[in-house]
């Protein structure tokens, strides 16, 4: 099920557009800076040499997801839904 949606999104290029939109919105609301600060704190705790990308990702992802503002989330969801419906009715 997921793959079907994914496939459709990628085929039409909608995924790229949606991603750009999401990035813009998250930067505007300051989410990106928040996540960056958190990452730096993790680095300071563990030292510069001891940090890997995986470590960072595993630490930051759940918090990042939680910090996304609702408005942004709603907007994006709205867009995805309309896309799906549109695709289903083609």
């Amino acid at each position, binding site marked *: 099920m997921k793959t079907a949606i994914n496939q459709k999104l990628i085929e039409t290029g909608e995924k790229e557009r949606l991603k750009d939109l999401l990035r813009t919105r998250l930067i505007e609301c300051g989410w990106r800076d928040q996540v960056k600060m958190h990452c730096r704190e993790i*680095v300071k705790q563990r030292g510069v040499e001891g940090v890997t990308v995986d470590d960072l990702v595993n630490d930051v992802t759940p918090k990042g997801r939680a910090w996304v503002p609702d408005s942004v989330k709603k907007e994006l969801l709205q867009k*995805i839904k309309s896309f799906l419906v549109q695709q289903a009715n083609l």
Partner: protein
Amino acid sequence: MEILMQLKRLVSTPECLEKSAESAFEELVDDVILGVCFDVHRAVKLGLTALEDGLIEEENKYQIVEGPDVDVFGQLPVKKQHECVCPSCHRNLAASRFAPHLEKCMGMGRNSSRIASRRIANNSKENASYGGGGTVSDDDDDADWTAGGSDRRRKRRDRHCGGGGGGRRTKTQKVRNGEVPPPTANSTCTSNSTAAATTSSSKDGGGAGASTMPSTSLGASSSSDAALPSKGFFESMSDEDKRNLMTQICGVISEHTGKLCLRSMRCPLHTEDQRRAVRVNLLGQQQFVGQVNKSSQEVEVSDCISMVVERGSSTVVSLIGVNQAAVPQRGGSQVDVEMYDGDVPITREPAGKGGWEVEHSNTSSPADSASTSSSSSNKKREKSSKAKKKNSSKGVKVSANVLISNHQVGGD
């Protein structure tokens, strides 16, 4: 086609739609997070983050401090005084008191009493060396001394009058106790310059000890007209007169004008070392050794020393002009003296007449022009006839020649 079927199934139920939309959204967010993590990781590994953090650490030093008794930097209101060590007396002094202290300590200030102590020391030394030369005059730190010059001026005026005044002494001329009265106009007219100079010098020489002489001479000279210079005056001064002169004035040759400093022995501009050096130059070995034969040495060091009398002017007789231009050395028996009165360098006549000219300089600034009485010119000449030495590094060129001191002395 299969995909399409699936999609339709998904879309049909709102819950399904919601779920699928959310999963799609989550995937997008994960991708963005990954991008941020990549960015941060790269920055940390490259050290860019450390650069930014460094600035933050520095701020702590200069943070603004707020407190009841403390100023913005966290310092107490009463300022610490900077302390410094005096180089001569090695005391710890507050910075604000350092400059006045140094003035007094080194004896360079206006009111420093170090000059007095220096003068006393100098006096005792000079008394020992000169065998009791004249007393030191305290009075004229600033004044130019025109004691001898004024007498000469009087004489010249008498000469000009052509004896109209006859043998009468001028009003300003005072006969001092024990001195020979000033010569009559006729006699002065007939005598040559050296003779006139020497007579006046001899007259003054007797009164050289009078400390009030400078002041009276000043007054006298200012009222008198300056006549034509009589040349060879200084050299015609006897040794004794020269020595007397050197005990009464500072005598250090100024680098600017090349003339002797006519301030008193307490002059704050010059050190004892300088005065000693000048005396060595001018008086040569004689004052120290005391046994050198005058005729054998007869070397005039400071040909630069000359007395120049300017025409029609004022109070100051410049005693010494330094030879500042290149003067070709004449025959060994002649003394080259060039005068520099501060405005125009005047080349002297050949030394056949004797080295010294007396001129009243227009510059009345005491610091510049070295003024002295004609009476001391003999003494000066005597002192000069010693070592061949350059007086100062600057423009003073001493053409060290053998002085015809015998010739000069003949004018006595």
